[in-house]
């Protein structure tokens, strides 16, 4: 710790703190453009200049000098810095004037206006008028991908975007070419960025140079209603802010949560918003003579009631979807229980995970924050870059910190960090389990992280693989057995026991021709239901489930309901309603509640609050929002071992951009997908 006096306030901070951080500790905010907490220090914008005593007698860039670089006074007094002296004021005015020399005065037509650091800081720290009468420099716009629109004349060369793509994304897409007044920010020869996190550069850019292209000229920042939400495009549960104008969701931004997504979200989380409006189911439909026709709720319920009456419970089934909230699944399960149905399952991909093996058997036990503490990593049957790009960035961050051995068993994808490829299938895992090769590294590691993906679990020998992997992961207090799910709803579904009851069928078995006569799909779009059964689809989009359905009941998407989602590490998170579902659509839990009344099996709740009370009684940890209920690692030792097959692990995600019905409806995601496929093809050539 070191002492420093900031504007007369003495603070005690770690010696390696920068002056900027020390000032913040003292409650003094320092303007900045290039500095960003999560990126390396560039020190090139000079906006953060302060005056110091005990250092050079000139304004000092506070982001680039640390407290320990300052000398104490002649009698050992702590060094002093000033953030509001005349020197600082003059320095800030000067820097601002230089920055504005070549910055266009187009705030009125700039999307960033209203949330622009340059605008705000010019107002707070700049001069009141310009003395510059020469011509301004103009810079050509660049193509850098479908998600980010550029207006490069506005760029102030802070290089945040360059550092972000190099350090966080690991794709090194952007760079600063040329020099001096001819500096230009661009990608290599204007190719599209290749990262799944590229959309974040629009948040990082302090000016309006990089803007989200799909939101171009759509709304002003002050017009938005901002609602805190949780992303469902993967199982990480990134914290998001849903910005709506009127009834329409215009954009989605990350919310800072250091324990989950830091301040990043994937491009799918950010830019599948247009999918919320397209292909929507806004009224019930009935299939008549092979064609779906619009129907009223009572007609639709009538048709279902007739079918339910005519079908025995063991010929009825429920399949839970990947985007459903805990409440939706809880209501569906309650109805199934009332009907005496045992065939319920939310594991559309057939993952061999079962709540009866204990909660530790299906959580990312190490926790996302735990990645920072891990000292070795084995990835089994997963492509984290596509299954959860933000989590992958966290792994990359841990790798950058050094001393981190990573090995992969499964497909050798480019994960943005180097790793040892041990093999394609269970043989390689068995070898590690015997302590050979990478097994030695794991044996020496104190906190080994074993990341198990759906590619390893959603197969016949999934349970045996889980048992083998679990053996490698527990050391003392450390439980590194970490399942990376691909579905946002999965952990919640397993927590409430949305799995087959005694003698019930699994999702895969239910989907088989002839297995069932009546099947309810609760937003389940990732499974192919074979012909035969009468299918009731409750969901949001005209996707696979709806095409197969005989009755469609329109539901609410994740931005249109208040709901709980439990992320892959078991963190319970609440998302708020940002808007209403379109047309006649209703929240799924309410649909099941209404249907239950028609069926004469009325569910015991009339409101979301009552439902949650029941839920909390059944599953107490659902009440602990934003908390992780730690799972007992002891259960892992009892996982049943079994025979391994020789087949290679294959990640279920073949196209990052099209993994859920919302993304599949999105035109932006379709464009990204086509681009990525083209790039993959090119790379293969």
């Amino acid at each position: 710790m070191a002492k420093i006096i900031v504007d007369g306030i003495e603070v005690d901070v770690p010696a390696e703190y920068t002056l900027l951080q020390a000032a913040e500790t003292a409650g003094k905010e320092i303007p900045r453009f290039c500095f960003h907490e999560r990126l390396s220090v560039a020190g090139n914008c000079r906006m953060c200049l302060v005056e110091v005593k005990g250092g050079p007698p000139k304004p000092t860039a506070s982001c680039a000098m640390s407290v320990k670089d300052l000398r104490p006074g002649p009698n050992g007094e702590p060094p002093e810095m000033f953030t509001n002296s005349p020197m600082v004021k003059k320095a800030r005015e000067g820097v601002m004037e230089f920055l504005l020399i070549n910055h266009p005065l187009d705030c009125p037509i700039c999307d960033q206006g209203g949330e622009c650091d340059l605008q705000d800081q010019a107002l707070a720290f700049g001069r009141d008028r310009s003395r510059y009468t020469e011509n301004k420099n103009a810079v050509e716009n660049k193509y850098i991908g479908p998600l980010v629109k550029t207006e490069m004349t506005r760029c102030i060369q802070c290089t945040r975007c360059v550092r972000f793509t190099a350090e966080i994304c690991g794709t090194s897409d952007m760079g600063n070419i040329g020099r001096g007044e001819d500096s230009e920010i661009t990608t290599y020869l204007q190719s599209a960025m290749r990262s799944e996190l590229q959309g974040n550069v629009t948040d990082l850019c302090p000016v309006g140079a990089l803007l989200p292209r799909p939101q171009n000229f759509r709304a002003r920042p002050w017009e938005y209603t901002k609602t805190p939400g949780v992303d469902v495009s993967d199982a990480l549960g990134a914290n998001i802010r849903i910005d709506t104008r009127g009834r329409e969701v215009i954009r989605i931004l990350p919310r800072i949560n250091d324990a989950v997504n830091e301040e990043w979200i994937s491009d799918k989380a950010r830019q599948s918003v247009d999918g919320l409006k397209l292909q929507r189911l806004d009224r019930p439909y009935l299939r008549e003579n092979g064609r779906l026709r619009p129907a009223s709720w009572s007609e639709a319920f009538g048709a279902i009631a007739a079918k339910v009456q005519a079908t025995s419970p063991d010929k009825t089934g429920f399949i839970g979807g990947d985007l459903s909230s805990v409440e939706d699944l809880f209501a569906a399960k309650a109805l199934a229980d009332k009907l005496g149905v045992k065939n319920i399952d939310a594991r559309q991909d057939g993952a061999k995970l079962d709540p009866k093996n204990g909660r530790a058997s299906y959580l990312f036990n190490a926790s996302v924050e735990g990645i920072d503490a891990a000292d070795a990593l084995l990835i089994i049957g997963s492509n984290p870059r596509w299954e959860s790009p933000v989590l992958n960035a966290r792994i990359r961050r841990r790798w950058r910190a050094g001393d981190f051995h990573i090995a992969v068993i499964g497909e050798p994808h480019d994960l943005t960090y180097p790793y040892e490829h041990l093999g394609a299938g269970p043989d390689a895992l068995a070898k590690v389990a015997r302590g050979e090769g990478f097994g030695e590294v794991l044996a020496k590691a104190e906190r080994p992280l074993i990341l198990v993906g759906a590619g390893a679990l959603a197969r016949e020998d999934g349970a045996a693989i889980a048992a083998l992997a679990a053996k490698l992961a527990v050391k003392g207090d450390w439980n590194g057995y970490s399942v990376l799910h691909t579905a946002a709803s999965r952990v919640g579904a397993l927590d409430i026991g949305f799995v087959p009851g005694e003698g019930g069928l699994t999702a895969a078995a239910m989907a088989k021709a002839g297995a069932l006569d009546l099947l309810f799909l609760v937003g389940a779009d990732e499974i192919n239901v074979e012909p035969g059964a009468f299918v009731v689809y409750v969901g949001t989009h005209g996707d696979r489930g709806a095409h197969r359905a005989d009755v469609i009941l329109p539901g609410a998407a994740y931005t249109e309901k208040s709901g709980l989602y439990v992320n892959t590490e078991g963190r319970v998170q609440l998302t708020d309603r940002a808007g209403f579902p379109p047309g006649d659509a209703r929240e799924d839990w309410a649909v099941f509640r209404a249907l239950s009344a028609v069926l004469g099996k009325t569910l015991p709740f009339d409101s979301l609050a009552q439902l949650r009370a029941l839920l909390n009684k059944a599953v107490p940890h659902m009440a602990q929002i934003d908390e992780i209920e730690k799972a007992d690692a002891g259960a892992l030792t009892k996982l049943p071992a079994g025979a391994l097959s020789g087949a290679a692990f294959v990640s279920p995600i073949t196209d990052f951009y099209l993994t859920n019905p919302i993304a599949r409806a999105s035109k932006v995601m379709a464009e990204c997908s086509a681009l990525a496929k083209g790039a993959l093809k090119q790379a293969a050539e």
Partner: protein
Amino acid sequence: MSARRLAEQQPDSFEFTPENKAWLDRQIAKYPPGRQASAVIPALWQAQKQHDYWLPQKAIEKVADLLGMPYIRVLEVATFYTMFNLEPVGKFFVQVCGTTPCMLRGSDAIIEVCQKRIGEQRHVTADGLFSWLEVECLGACCNAPMVQINDDYYEDLTAESFAKLLDDLAAGRPTHVGPQNGRNRSEPLGGLTALTEFYGADGKSGPLSDPAAAAQPAHPGK
């Protein structure tokens, strides 16, 4: 200077010659493992020398591949330094210094000759012999104004001597590298004024009196 871009006409491929590759491997070996990116400037320089004094896109990519760098990082370096030519240059590539000392000593007249004799900056003459570029200080200010032609400095120029120099080059006549006004290196024009008891008399230095010294190597061309 305005924004520098890669040339529109690009060769399809670029390979280092075996000698240059071996030379480059020796440069790379100078740096500790994992730090081979440090060799990027020598690598680009050698590529440029091998490729008629300009860097094609494929050479930039080749260097990036050899050094394990992202393409954009190498492009940044190539566009930063004006010593890397991104477009074809003339057989005699004239870099005119236009920085203050040279400007005060008449570089404007030199530039005028370039414009008249060669044409626009960064354009190669139809016969492929010349192109020129205004650059910043080349570190020979005491002999201002000066130009660099390929690897050689020609100093103490006047419009006349520079025009003659260009004519000589075009005609393939030998040229005299260094000061064009009879000055010896960067010594005072009128001969030594100090330390004369140590220098000058014995031919070690001083005004060019020795015909052998005057016959410095003619411009080697390419």
